[in-house]
Structures are given as structure tokens and as C-alpha cells.
């Protein structure tokens, strides 16, 4: 397994692709060597694309008996030192929770993709964001956190695969990409950057590749029967999470300068909110958008910094209101935080969000404010 040469560098390449396909293509280019998965709408294209394309380009791609099997194969394969991933959608991701907890504790770097659909239960196959809590607070047992990335475009469906793998390797931690059915199914323009896996994949001296005479055996385990040892492991994990929180927060901030109202949204809801924010700006409402790109670590700091100048925050989600807790934790009671959302696979419209923004801003939001600000996105990486 010559992992560093798995995928040669390719030049940038622009295509019109489904989000699921872009993600799969990026995985191949990121040097992913193994994919284990089980079909489920709306993400089966990942498996299908990799079966065709990935195999052609040397990847091991397997449709296996279940998501439970898949996540444990990821454990095994990634534990053996390879770049390995799986993908699924909500119910399938629930089935992986035990496995993810094991992976996090054994500190095995890998990539898990959840193309979120409407739940709970079997629900609907339409796009939703109802798995936010599961992804960010820990759907499995015990204290652990995957790094959670939330793409908002097909381009980011690709970009976050590279980032996700790199972060996973950097921290020996699972990365979760939390997308949704629309991002998976829609086609948009996507550009694949130059990326040479050999420059990104670190040595993995901890991997179980067979114990040479001259090193101690490598053991990957999450079992530490002595509470003292288990506490030590937990402290080490917590320390790692602190480092991640300190170094890896990513978010997008739009129109923040003079904002009185802050819309907070991630993924598809953020795209829609962005549009609504632009519409509101056109009407002179001083509103900004904060889009967390990393859901874990969460950009609490930007909220803390902004809270004193805000009149209110509006959280827009495709769920019953989950991220709102993190926003509340961020603004610490300083400003009222309102929620607007749709559920069950329904996508909010920019008009609906605008309506909520207008409601928050009140009628008399000050005449003469109707200046249209040029959109200025800044993708910040805090301290990184």
C-alpha cells in the first residue's frame, strides 16, 4: 500500500456535478484508499460514483451488509493506516454511533459523511438539518467529539473532503461532514484544486500494519478498564478537543460591520439566509450573517465578540431549533435569540427568512438606512 502516491496531483478542473459526486471525486483526489458503505437516499451517488471512478483509480470501494459493518470496517481500515471513509444519511448514521464513539476513543482518523434527510425515524428523504445535535454533541456514548464540517455548496462538498481528511489525520480524530439531501443531489459548478496526498498524509506510526521486531506492538483500543486509566484517556481527549477548539474554528461572516441583527445559519439554510440578508440590506436593514463552517468546534467567540453591538439574533435551521442552543451559549443572554426553521424536508425560502428579519428589526428601523452594502464574504479561520 503505497498510500502517498495513491493519487497523483491533477490540475484544477471545473465541472458541473452533483454534490454527492463532487464529494466522491474529491475523496479520490484526496488519496482516500478505502470506502465502505451501504446505499441510502439521498447519498447513494457517493457509493455509486466511487464504485465506478474510485475503483478505476485504485481505491477499495465496498458496498457492505450494513452501516454498522461499514463504520467498523472504517475502524479497521483506517486503523491499518489508510485514508478511509464512509457515508450515509440520518438513520444509517444513527446506526454508526457506537462505532464512531469507538473510533473517537481509539483516535483513528477517518471521514464520515452524513447527507442529512428529514427525521426522526424513517422520516423523509428530503433535505434537513435535524442531525445537528447528534453530530455536534455526540450521538454516541461518552465524552467525544468528531470535528464537524458543514458545507453549503457543491464546491464545499468537495473542499471539505480534503479539509476533513487533513484535520482527521492532524488530530487522529474522526471528521464528520454534515451536509443535507439538497447539497447531495444538486448540481453546481465545482472546481477541484491541486492537492497532492503525499504532501498531506502524515506518517502513521501508530497504525496496525504488522509489528516489526524493532518496535513495540501497536494496539488500537478504547478499552481502559481501570477508571484511572480511562480518566487519563479522557483527559487526553479533552485536551485534544481544546486544541481543536483553539485552532480550527472556521466561519463565514457577511455584513458584520454595522449589524444590529445577526442571522446565524449553516449549510443550505445559510445560503438561503444569505440571500435573505442581501434582500434585507437592500431594504436598509442592518443585518449580518454568520455561517459556522465548523459546527464542532463552534465559533462561539465571534458571537461573544459581536453580542454587545447586536439587538438580536435569528437562527435559521432546517430542524426544530438545535443550533439555537449554541448561539444562545455564544451570546450568553446578552441579546434575544429567535429561531426560524422548517422541518421534515422543507427548505425555508429567502422570503420567509426576510420576513423574520423584518419582524426582528421592527418597522421603524431608521430611515436613510437603505444603503446597499456590497457583499463581502470573509472566510475566517480563527487563530489559524
Amino acid at each position, binding site marked *: 500500500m503505497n498510500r502517498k502516491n495513491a493519487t497523483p496531483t491533477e490540475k484544477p478542473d471545473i465541472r458541473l456535478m452533483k454534490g454527492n459526486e463532487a464529494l466522491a471525486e474529491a475523496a479520490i483526489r484526496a488519496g482516500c484508499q478505502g470506502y465502505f458503505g451501504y446505499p441510502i437516499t439521498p447519498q447513494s451517488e457517493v457509493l455509486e460514483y466511487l464504485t465506478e471512478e474510485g475503483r478505476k483509480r485504485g481505491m477499495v470501494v465496498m458496498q457492505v451488509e450494513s452501516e454498522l459493518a461499514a463504520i467498523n470496517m472504517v475502524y479497521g481500515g483506517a486503523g491499518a493506516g489508510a485514508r478511509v471513509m464512509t457515508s450515509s444519511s440520518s438513520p444509517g448514521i444513527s446506526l454508526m454511533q457506537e462505532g464512531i464513539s469507538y473510533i473517537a476513543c481509539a483516535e483513528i482518523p477517518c471521514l464520515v459523511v452524513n447527507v442529512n434527510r428529514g427525521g426522526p425515524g424513517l422520516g423523509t428523504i428530503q433535505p434537513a438539518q435535524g442531525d445537528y445535535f447528534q453530530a455536534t454533541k455526540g450521538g454516541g456514548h461518552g465524552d467525544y467529539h468528531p470535528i464537524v464540517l458543514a458545507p453549503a455548496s457543491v464546491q464545499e462538498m468537495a473542499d471539505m473532503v480534503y479539509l476533513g481528511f487533513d484535520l482527521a489525520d492532524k488530530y487522529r480524530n474522526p471528521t464528520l461532514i454534515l451536509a443535507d439531501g439538497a447539497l447531495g443531489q444538486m*448540481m*453546481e459548478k465545482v472546481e477541484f484544486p491541486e492537492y497532492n496526498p503525499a504532501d498531506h498524509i502524515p506518517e502513521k506510526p501508530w497504525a496496525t500494519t504488522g509489528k516489526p521486531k524493532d518496535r513495540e506492538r501497536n494496539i488500537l483500543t478504547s478499552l481502559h478498564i481501570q477508571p484511572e486509566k480511562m480518566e487519563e484517556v479522557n483527559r487526553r481527549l479533552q485536551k485534544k478537543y481544546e486544541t481543536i477548539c483553539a485552532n480550527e474554528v472556521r466561519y463565514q461572516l457577511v455584513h458584520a460591520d454595522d449589524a444590529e441583527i445577526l442571522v446565524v445559519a449553516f449549510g443550505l439554510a445559510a445560503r438561503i439566509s444569505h440571500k435573505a440578508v442581501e434582500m434585507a440590506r437592500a431594504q436598509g436593514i442592518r443585518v449580518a450573517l454568520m455561517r459556522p463552517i465548523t459546527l464542532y468546534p463552534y465559533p462561539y467567540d465571534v458571537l461573544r465578540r459581536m453580542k454587545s453591538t447586536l439587538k438580536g439574533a435569528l437562527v435559521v435551521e432546517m430542524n426544530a431549533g438545535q443550533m439555537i442552543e449554541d448561539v444562545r451559549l455564544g451570546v450568553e443572554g446578552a441579546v434575544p435569540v429567535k429561531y426560524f426553521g422548517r422541518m421534515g424536508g422543507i*427548505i425555508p*425560502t429567502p422570503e420567509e427568512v426576510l420576513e423574520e428579519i423584518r419582524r426582528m428589526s421592527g418597522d421603524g428601523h431608521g430611515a436613510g438606512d437603505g444603503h446597499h452594502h456590497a457583499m463581502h464574504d470573509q472566510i475566517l479561520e480563527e487563530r489559524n
Partner: protein
Amino acid sequence: MTQEILIAGFGGQGVLSMGMTLAYAGMLDGKEVSWMPSYGPEMRGGTANCIVILADEPVSSPIITSFDTLVALNQPSLDKFEKAVKKGGTLLYEKSTIITPPTRTDITILPVDAAREAELLKNKKIGNMIMVGVFLGLNDVVSVDSVMRALEKVLPERYHHLIPVNRDAVERGRSLVGETVTSLEESHE
């Protein structure tokens, strides 16, 4: 200029590739584009549809509920989506599959006998490209050139020998626009 299009019909009618062709062409023209298929299990029944957005600004949601243009390729699609056309919008439909034609009066309605036109071009599968042509005849949101180039990208390589006939279909569709629009009255017979 932004065009929000819904194309709906049966599985085999080339619904998705029609949409992709338009989206790809838009991309080549430097537009912001998105293409979104329906993927519900209603596909079991054999229906398919996709939403194409061609815009000057970034597309917010790929899933929308009202459209500038509806291309309805069968009766269930027409029944279901007629009301989703924006006031003043356009509705193209495949004449051969429609039993009950649309009744709205606040939109432009064009029946297109794409199936027959396709047969005339000796390829039953290119009805969708006839429709693309009609769409182009009505809108200049994307250039004909880009559509032609898009075809190469959208058609799988094994079908590349069919590019010429697809081009012909697009051309034929464009040329139909005059004819079809004048026959509008008649379609409401």
C-alpha cells in the same frame, strides 16, 4: 437575468439531461447555475423532474416552488405543476402525451409536438432537445452556442455520435417557436 425552470415528465423522456444541458450551458456562459432533481420514491411510478436555475447572482436554494418556465412532458406533471408557473411565466408541454391541456390564462402556454418532431428527425430520444430548442427560442438566458457545447459534456461518451442529431433537434426546436406560438389558440380547442 434569472430563469427558474421546472422540467417534469416520465423517466425515459430525457427530463434530467434536458435540465443538465441548460445548466451546463449556463455555466459556460458564466452564470450561476444549479440543477436539482426530484428524488422521492414517487420515482417508483416513473415520474421525474428537475429544477434548473440560471442566475446572475449566487443561487440560494436549489429547491423552489414557483417557476418562470415549466416544461411538462406528461399529464401528471402538467396537472401537478401548472399552478407553479409564475404569473406571466411560460408553460411548454409535450402535446402527444396530454389529454387535458392547461387552462391558465395568465401565462404563456405552448404545446409542442416534440415527439413527432423527433420522429421526423428519426430519433425518438431527442424530444427533449426539441424542447431545449423551443426554450432557447423563447429565452436568451443562455446562448445557443453554449448549449451546443454543453451537449458534449452532458452526453456520455458512448452517445457522442449522436451530437449532430441533438444539435439538429435544438435547431428544429428553435425554429418551431414561431409556428408553435401562432398555433397557441388552436391548442386550447
